[in-house]
């Protein structure tokens, strides 16, 4: 954010619009043999100028168009998120209980419904998973990360059961993995109730939850057997909507970030609901999504992500330590040596 502000200042100083400014850069790179050394050798690039502006003004102080936020401002949003995620964790547990009951009864259809419920609510935890560590890997781990893949004995969580349910494995074979899953899920409520999330991580989650959905859900990587990528994207949207809602008071008046985010959020929400409606009110599997529907979903998500990416920068908090230069560290090293 500081750097971006610096770049803005440079652009303003050049007296040109942003568009003109970038155009001149493009012209330079198009003729590398002729112009590059003259331009970048003689003066700093605009980005380096922006960096220098940051060097001059870093930690904390003027130079940014926004006063950094006090980290304490994040206490309330994170507390709200903890309460929300505790509710979701409870629902995950309930889903897994129903899953175990259905497996014990040999009812595959009911087991699939319960599995999807548990998966939905786990994804709605969204902001937490980075902070859950090994517990996340045990509950939601993918076989691709394990030696031996799906045959690995460590492949045990939700996706182990997904594979069994959607490939016609006998329900009785899934009773043990489900019991293991239940044991892990039991810890979830306690963990999310006390979870510590630092301000930057929380602000970054506002766009990373859906970045993961783009990379892993819509691409059919995360839940390949059930094909639940679209409903998983909707769950990720729900988690994002909650995080953004908690951050709204902090974003008010900061770079007009919140308004376009909310507009695009609502639009994408509507797009997903529409696709569900077109499929008779049920979430289609990724295979059932038509190319035309896919295009609408991909475009809507991409556009929302572009808006969301402004949030971490707009919510910058005080950076506590300046980053030293190599020259400064050399000087400090020499002084240390002299003192000895």
């Amino acid at each position: 954010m500081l750097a971006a502000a610096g770049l803005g200042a440079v652009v303003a100083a050049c007296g040109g619009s942003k568009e003109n400014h970038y155009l001149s850069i493009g012209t330079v790179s198009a003729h590398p043999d002729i112009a590059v050394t003259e331009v970048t050798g003689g003066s700093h690039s605009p980005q380096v100028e922006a960096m220098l502006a940051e060097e001059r003004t870093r930690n904390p102080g003027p130079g940014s168009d926004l006063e950094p936020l006090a980290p304490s401002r994040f206490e309330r949003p994170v507390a709200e998120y903890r309460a929300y995620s505790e509710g979701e964790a409870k629902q995950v547990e309930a889903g897994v209980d129903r899953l175990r009951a259905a497996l014990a009864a040999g009812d595959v259809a009911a087991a699939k419904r319960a599995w999807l419920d548990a998966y939905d609510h786990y994804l709605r935890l969204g902001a937490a998973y980075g902070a859950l560590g090994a517990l996340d890997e045990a509950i939601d781990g993918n076989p691709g990360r394990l030696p031996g893949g799906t045959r690995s004995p460590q492949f045990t969580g939700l996706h182990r059961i997904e594979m069994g349910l959607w490939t016609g494995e006998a329900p009785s074979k899934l009773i043990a993995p489900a019991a293991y899953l239940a044991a892990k899920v039991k810890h979830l409520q306690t963990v999310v109730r006390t979870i510590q999330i630092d301000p930057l991580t929380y602000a970054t989650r506002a766009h990373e939850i859906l970045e993961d959905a783009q990379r892993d859900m819509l691409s059919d990587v995360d839940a390949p057997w059930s094909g639940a990528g679209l409903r998983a994207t909707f769950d990720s949207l729900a988690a994002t909507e909650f995080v953004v809602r908690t951050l709204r008071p902090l974003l008010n008046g900061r770079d007009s970030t919140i308004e376009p985010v909310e507009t695009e959020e609502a639009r994408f929400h509507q797009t997903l609901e529409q696709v569900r409606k077109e499929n008779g009110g049920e979430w289609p599997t990724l295979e059932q999504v038509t190319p035309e529907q896919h295009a609408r979903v991909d475009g809507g998500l991409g556009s929302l992500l572009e808006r969301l990416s402004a949030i971490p920068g707009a919510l910058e908090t005080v950076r506590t330590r300046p980053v030293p230069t190599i020259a400064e560290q050399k000087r400090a090293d020499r002084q240390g040596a002299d003192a000895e």
Partner: protein
Amino acid sequence: MSQIDRRSFLKRAGGVGLGGLAAGYGLGAATSEARAAEESPQQRAERVNKAELSDQRGFDGVHQAGILTPAANFSILVAMDAIAPGVGELTTALRALSARARELTQGGAYPPREYDDPPYDSGTLGTDIAPDGLTVTIAFGASLFDGRYGLASRRPAHLTEMTAFPHDQLDPARTGGDLLVQIAAGHRDTVEHALRELLKPVRGSLQPRWTVAGATGAQRGPSPHSSRRNHFGFHDGTSNPDVTDPKVMNRLVWAERGGAEPAWTVDGTYQVVRAIRMHVEFWDRVGLHEQEEMIGRKRDTGAPLGGEGEFENPRYDLDPKGERVPLEAHVRLANPREPKTIDQRILRRAWNYSEGFDADGQLNVGLLFVAFNQDIQRQFTAIQERLNEEPMVDYVTPEGGGYFFAPRAARDSGDWVGSGLFA
């Protein structure tokens, strides 16, 4: 400088003269500047183009070309599986592969055939093949050393199948292979032509398994030595070891002599290939400060954080707590520059690849990572294990590649790459 390097240098210089082309090579800077002032941009472009096209990198010698050679602008890597019914058919194909590769790297006119016969050459480069700095580097995968051709006892000591690291999502159809051919040259049509021509004599014995086409960024400065940029916009390959120092190459690149290595591996090297998808839309939505902390360098200059020039020593010794360059920054984990990691360094030859869009409309682009090293476990694997949990893993997905062994070059036009393995 090894024999092949001297040879290719001499050939290159000679090749320029033979072609009768006005060339900047070998002329003093003042002369070429004077010439540059006289000629029009069109004349200059023509001169540079001709000089590039006449560049010969050779094929025969001690070490295969395309290893110490700086990464050419364009490359195609193709992995193939051996389907030859017996070892005789296989060696015939390998012999033909070397013979055609030798012709293409030398360039020249191809022989005419009768009018009603299919022509000798596809003709996509015209009637006179320009060598264009073409290198063809041939390597063998671990799977070749199974029972099919009786090679099990001759497997290079450190050659294994590439297994998945924790964040890999390897597609079996894009991983492994019995044979790897790395084709690199100055222009895209040259590498495409070479691929087409090299497949022709080996049909029935070697069947393509996967391919990736790569390109380097143009040389855009700020200095003529600046490393090219990757799809993340950062300079790539800055801390490569010095290829002109035979001592360093003997320690880091060429197979160990004796010990567990079979005799035929002398003057060969292990080649690691990784097709690493880069999620660029996601990356472009990350603040520059965070990007630079993940990489450990400034995006504009390539300088280590807190430094000024790309090739400046990052001096991690002065920064033990990572106050300047975070301890988990990519460049710091990859090459910590500590005495104990000196033997782990690798020779990188990376290209960018671009394969259109994926099913979700996301750019399917990435890094075609190639590394040459003496011992995959001691070097590449040790580095990769340090990188397993680096913050950058969210933005990249290794999807394919493999481990291969590139043997010594063919001695002369009567020899072929791999002859030692079958001797």
